[in-house]
């Protein structure tokens, strides 16, 4: 042990170099839907869409695979985003009243997968600006920005404020044009007396530029007044005396009309006629869902079309009493009228339409709606306005994710069949339209192998995602609810079905989107999954102890599922299950669509949640464990082989149903009360944000902390009669030597929460070594699988066993079923002695086989004070040498860091900080791929993808053809951000695409400027961006209520924190 510790400290330069070639930590890309989106923008020229979030992140999406991410230094909500069309620049307005300028910039070429890629572009923060408060006015609310308008010329930004003033900012320098500021006084003077009635006009609600005459803008004030203002002349062109509270304005393409939407749920059409200085009445005024009081129409769009009548799109406006709680968006054209009914709040929407000035009509082709939980795209060209499947931004959390599983290197055959099954599922909603947001160019090399990410959900579905590239796209969805009798017998997703339209109803609602967080039966939830990619068998296990084995079938099939019940208690006396009852299986044959179809259902008794599964398709065996014991089932012969109770006789708590419900309820009640109290405190203080109040706030928060009694921790060694000691934590099948050193055969290993490991020798007919021959005809006659308890290991420290893995004679993990027999992997070494690696929460330990004696160990908890949460054996390939690779044990601890160990020596290799230690759900959701990548949830809807390998990286690499004058990018303090001459860009572009013609320059830049295999690359990264970007910022997806206190916490933590790591 001592020697080993010293050796670890010594550095062997040769080994260090190899380590650098093998390991490198990078957070590469986020998958899924951004948590709490708050702003949306679209650049019609570049065909790029930007989404801002409440945590201050900006994500830009173009064609599938084209993604850029930027994070504001302080985690304040992004309230508005505006593109400078075609320039690759965008402006963001934050909740703290600051305006930020971002740029897509290029960098030097870089090596990706052996090929040189140039023209790679990243998003970079350039500058920020905040409006000064007007002197003499104590509160800054007068200059609080309400709306922004970018003129088409892109050199002027108009800022509407709460005080009613309009400010003008020169772009891209972000300098205020002091003399042009338009306050309300000159406008009120021109108003007729009866309209004025002494009141202020209210905040600026909308600013819109005249579509045909540059320099004329429409200013809408909250009270209802709309002014057409000539910027050049600095005078009022026309006044429109609206009487209703204004919500939004939109021009008609010709500029002869504009439409205003109002607070009372109505909209008005106004005519613009030159020479008429004041129009007191709109041309028409409608309340579409009247006559009863309606909610406000928040935003309205008016799009002309070639076919005649314009398309009108507006959000809100629902009758207050009957449908006031719905999140709706109405699309109407002529007689066609659809009220899209969403399951979450509408954040913003835009249409994709023709912007060429020579075209006479808008001709909208698609409507893009950003909702709080998903993105919905409606095809406006196809009759019936069907929704379009999104190739990215998939709502992973349409039902809460309960588990996940990654399958690397999927065979092409299974891949194809999955895609076909998925197509058949989506069959009816297929539209011919291609994805409308198609800006940028994906430079990433096509994935070398197909990767599959499986997510299990609370509603009993398993979703299959294509995780090969940057965009996580849905492939296929499997529902398991139809195996059982449930309240909803056909959980068909209404979003899939456009025919579900109820004709009689007014408004004509149509359910759109697939976000549906309400689970019909929590027992259906998926807890564990295992897929054999060679035999296409899938095993899923759920909350009510159900274990389903499914096989792939390309045809629709009606059959009934074989049901078996396995009693894991084995007639133990004195236990009563107080939890949920088991699911009732469906007895009649049910129709199963093409795809994975259930074959066998095994139900555990008591129906506790399944905690571990293992599948061995070559032996036709499944193993499953719950908090009471584990079972072994032969799904080919449909008989139960083994059931073993792991309960400790003293452990009565495990029997009381879902894990210690009483305790957690009490705890959660206490926590929620605390949260309410805190939110009251912080909520009050959020209103005033002067520096002094901030100090008070901090003091108050500190004082609050003082009140709480100091946290104490009891130092007690683990004892055998801890509750839940019987929970089976891991199961594994292996063909190894359990009985003696000469005969190997199938074995089953199970580890429990109290550090017990059970090893069973299995007799599988037709499988196994010489033992069968020894017994001669005996094995033929007994056609049943048998299990014999071979070994029991009780780890002294009694820590939960996290993982068990058998290593072959060369110290390599055994291959998966079928891999060796079908020559897909190197056959395991059966000549030398095997060993078993048992990872508990506290220690990693390798034991020799068949005589179980400790060979090596690493005591992680005793040395580092952290506990093992997740463990995986990963094959790392060297980035430098083509055929050099190493099997490495990757270990995620409760502190969120990754420890890498070589096997079987268990020598520590590297350590990386990965997940914030407070992010418990992130750590719990982490899943590793076999080639050194991993995923974890950074919010309920988003996976962060990371890579530990220096070679295998999946990250966005994309270029965008930009069109912008490049002479300057000077930041506010005078430092040049990107001192690149025009010419450089041109040549770069030429090299990159080889087909550049019109753009005066295009930019390219890598995501990471440093070589990827340098372990320092993360640290270097921050240097060329703002420097304040930290991991924590990305992951802080906090609710507004908790924001203040969390910011405080961050402030306090700031000192101790090392320079942050930029994600992606």
């Amino acid at each position: 042990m001592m020697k080993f510790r010293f050796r670890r400290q010594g550095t062997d330069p040769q080994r260090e170099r190899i380590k650098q070639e093998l390991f490198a930590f990078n957070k590469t890309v986020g998958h899924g839907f951004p948590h709490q989106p708050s702003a949306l923008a679209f650049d019609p020229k570049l065909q790029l869409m930007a989404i801002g979030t409440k945590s201050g992140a900006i994500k830009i999406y173009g064609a599938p695979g084209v993604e850029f991410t930027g994070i504001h230094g302080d985690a304040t909500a992004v309230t508005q985003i505006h593109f400078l069309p075609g320039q690759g620049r965008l402006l963001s307005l934050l909740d703290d009243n600051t305006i930020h300028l971002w740029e897509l910039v290029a960098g030097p070429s870089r090596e990706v997968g052996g090929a040189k890629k140039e023209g790679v572009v990243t998003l970079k923060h350039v500058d920020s600006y905040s409006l000064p408060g007007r002197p003499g006015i104590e509160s800054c609310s007068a200059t609080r920005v309400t709306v922004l308008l970018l003129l088409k010329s892109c050199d002027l930004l108009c800022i509407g404020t709460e005080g009613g003033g309009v400010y003008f900012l020169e772009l891209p320098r972000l300098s205020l044009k002091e003399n042009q500021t338009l306050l309300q006084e000159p406008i009120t003077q021109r108003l007729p007396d009866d309209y004025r009635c002494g009141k202020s006009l209210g905040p600026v609600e909308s600013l819109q530029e005249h579509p045909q005459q540059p320099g004329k803008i429409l200013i809408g004030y909250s009270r209802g007044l709309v002014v057409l203002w000539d910027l050049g002349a600095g005078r009022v062109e026309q006044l429109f005396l609206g009487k209703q509270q204004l919500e939004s304005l939109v021009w008609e393409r010709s500029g002869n009309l504009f439409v205003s939407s109002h607070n009372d749920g109505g909209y008005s059409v106004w005519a613009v006629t030159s020479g008429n200085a004041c129009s007191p009445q709109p041309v028409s005024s409608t309340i579409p869902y009247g006559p009863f009081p309606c909610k406000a129409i928040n935003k309205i769009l008016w799009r002309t079309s070639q076919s005649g009548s314009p398309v009108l799109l507006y959000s809100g406006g629902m009758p207050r009493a009957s449908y006031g709680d719905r999140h709706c968006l109405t699309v109407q054209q002529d007689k066609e009228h659809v009220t899209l009914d969403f399951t979450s709040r509408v954040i913003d929407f835009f249409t994709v339409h023709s912007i060429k000035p020579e075209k006479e009509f808008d001709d909208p082709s698609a409507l893009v709606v950003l909702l709080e939980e998903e993105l919905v795209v409606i095809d406006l060209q196809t009759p019936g306005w069907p929704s379009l499947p999104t190739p990215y931004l998939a709502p992973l959390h349409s039902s809460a994710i309960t588990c996940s599983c990654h399958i690397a290197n999927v065979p092409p055959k299974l891949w194809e069949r999955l895609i076909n099954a998925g197509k058949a599922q989506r069959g009816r909603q297929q539209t011919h339209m291609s994805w409308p947001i198609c800006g940028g160019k994906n430079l990433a090399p096509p994935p070398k192998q197909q990767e599959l990410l499986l997510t299990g959900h609370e509603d009993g579905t398993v979703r299959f995602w294509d995780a090969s590239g940057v965009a996580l796209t849905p492939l296929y969805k499997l529902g398991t609810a139809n195996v059982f009798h449930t309240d909803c017998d056909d959980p068909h997703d209404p979003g899939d079905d456009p025919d579900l339209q109820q004709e009689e109803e007014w408004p004509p609602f149509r359910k759109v989107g697939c976000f549906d967080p309400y689970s019909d039966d929590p027992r259906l939830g998926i807890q564990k999954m295992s897929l054999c990619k060679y035999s296409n068998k899938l095993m899923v296990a759920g909350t009510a102890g159900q274990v389903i084995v499914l096989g792939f079938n390309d045809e629709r099939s009606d059959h009934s599922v074989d049901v078996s019940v396995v009693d894991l208690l084995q007639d133990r006396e004195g236990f009563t299950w107080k939890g949920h009852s088991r699911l009732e299986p469906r007895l009649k044959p049910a129709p199963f669509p093409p795809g994975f179809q259930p074959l066998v259902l095994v139900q555990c008794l008591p129906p506790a949640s399944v905690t571990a599964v293992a599948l061995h398709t070559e032996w036709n065996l499944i193993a499953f464990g719950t908090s009471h014991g584990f079972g072994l089932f032969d799904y080919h012969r449909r008989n139960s082989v083994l059931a073993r109770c792991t309960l400790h006789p003293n452990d009565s708590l495990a029997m009381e149903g879902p894990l210690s419900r009483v305790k957690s309820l009490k705890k959660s009640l206490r926590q929620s009360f605390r949260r309410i109290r805190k939110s009251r405190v912080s909520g009050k203080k959020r209103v005033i944000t002067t520096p002094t109040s901030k100090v008070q706030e901090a003091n108050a928060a500190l004082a609050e902390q003082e009140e709480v009694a100091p946290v104490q921790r009891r130092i007690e060694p683990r004892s055998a009669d801890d509750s839940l000691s019987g929970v089976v934590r891991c199961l594994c099948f292996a063909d190894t030597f359990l009985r003696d050193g000469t005969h190997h055969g199938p074995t089953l290993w199970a580890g429990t929460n109290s550090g017990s490991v059970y090893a069973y020798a299995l007799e599988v007919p037709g499988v196994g070594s010489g033992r069968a021959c020894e017994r001669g005809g005996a094995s033929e006659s007994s056609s049943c699988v048998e299990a014999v308890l071979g070994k029991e290991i009780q780890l002294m420290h009694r820590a939960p066993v996290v993982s068990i893995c058998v290593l072959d004679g060369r110290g390599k993990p055994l291959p998966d079923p079928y891999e060796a027999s079908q020559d897909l992997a190197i056959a395991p070494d059966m000549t030398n002695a095997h060993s078993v690696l048992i990872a508990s929460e506290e220690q990693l330990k390798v034991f020799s086989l068949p005589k179980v004696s400790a060979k090596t160990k690493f005591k992680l908890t005793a040395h580092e004070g952290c506990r093992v949460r997740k463990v995986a054996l990963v094959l790392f390939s060297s980035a430098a040498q083509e055929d050099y690779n190493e099997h490495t044990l990757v270990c995620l601890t409760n502190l969120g860091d990754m420890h890498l160990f070589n096997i079987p020596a268990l020598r520590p290799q590297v350590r990386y900080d990965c997940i914030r230690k407070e992010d418990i759900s992130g750590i719990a959701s982490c899943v590793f791929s076999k080639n050194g990548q991993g995923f974890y949830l950074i919010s309920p809807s988003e996976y962060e993808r990371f890579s530990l390998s220096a070679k295998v990286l999946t990250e966005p690499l994309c270029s965008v053809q930009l069109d912008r004058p490049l002479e300057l990018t000077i930041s506010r303090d005078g430092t040049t951000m990107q001192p690149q001459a025009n010419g450089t860009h041109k040549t770069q572009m030429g090299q990159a695409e080889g087909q550049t013609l019109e753009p005066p320059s295009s930019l390219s830049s890598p995501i990471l400027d440093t070589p990827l295999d340098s372990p320092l690359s993360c640290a270097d990264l921050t240097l060329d961006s703002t420097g304040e970007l930290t991991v924590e910022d990305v992951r802080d997806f906090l609710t507004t209520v908790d924001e203040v206190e969390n910011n405080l916490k961050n402030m306090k933590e700031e000192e101790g924190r090392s320079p942050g790591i930029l994600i992606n």
Partner: protein
Amino acid sequence: MSFDQHVFCFVQFEAEYRRFGLKRNGSGGFQEFYRLLQTIHHIHGVDVLLGYADIHGDLLPINNDENFYKAVSSANPLLRIIITKREDEPVVYGTNSLQRRKKGLGLTGLRTTGSGTIHSKSKSGLMIGPPQNFRQISSIIDVDILPETHRRVRLHKHGTKKPLGFYIRDGVSVRVTPQGVEKVPGVFISRLVRGGLAESTGLLAVNDEILEVNGIDVAGKSLDQVTDMMVANSHNLIVTVKPANQRNNVVHRESKNFMGNSGSVGSAGSTGSVLSHESPSPASQSNPITASSSIAEGDSEDEDDDGDIILENDCPTAYNPHLVTKRNSVKLNGESSCSGPHPSAVGRPLPQSMSLPSSIGASLGYSSNTMSGHNGSLASSSQDSMKDDGTELTL
């Protein structure tokens, strides 16, 4: 003969061995047993000391009715008894005493010359050392290398049910640094559990600051991390504390240059603790005390203590839960395992029930003929050897 009611005694006196059976709940106390042993070994009139190996391999004394019953009840079913002449050097009881005998020090008679001389010196006057019938539960170690304000305490749990019994909390510690006085976060003992190990030693107190756990600095570690480290090391916990009460510190004696540089505290159960410096116990003497050795020692000790229990289940018996349980060769994986001259290792009850599901039982019986692995044969042979010499005696 049922295993529940009988104890197999395996008695060793110098080079002689005796085996016999003993009724577990037979009447008769220590005196009767003492006479019985004298009879068996034919050593009437020789003044001897009795010791037995407890489940952890520790040599514990039998000198009254109470610990005799304890010894009998702990037998599972084997009770290993070691008899030594009282004229010999005092037997050292306590942790790892059996292993120490096995290691360098050998049987009680053979001791290294260095320690021998010390002993002869001390023997001439007062006998200094831990009281003979006490078992060490804690010790102060590394007194010479630590600053006087710090104390390194080792707690021996002996696998007893007695909890370590203390709580820790976060706090603020004031340190004097070159930059001046600085407040840094620290971990403190917040509470001692009544009757717990920590309290009974008297070496740890509320508000003591914890500086190290098994040689690892806790600075910068969170409360949860420190908790986990302590729990992970609980079977052999060495904590370095800065006592809140600095008046009871061990004072360095400059003139003291012989080996007794560690204080140790012995305690027999709850009878209180005796503080005795300069203990000649081999445990403290054999520690070369350097800064790094505390880790090394911790680790090497771990190797001893950290034996996982492995149960081999491929024995060729017909299914009978009792038989299976008893006949498995149960083996401690550490150094106290059956290496050495002892034919069978120390038995130990398993926390998990070992009864097998009936399906396995059936298959066990079925395959019993073919599956007699070497483990099974070892188990049976050891049992045979237990019987062969057995002058069966009942009290």
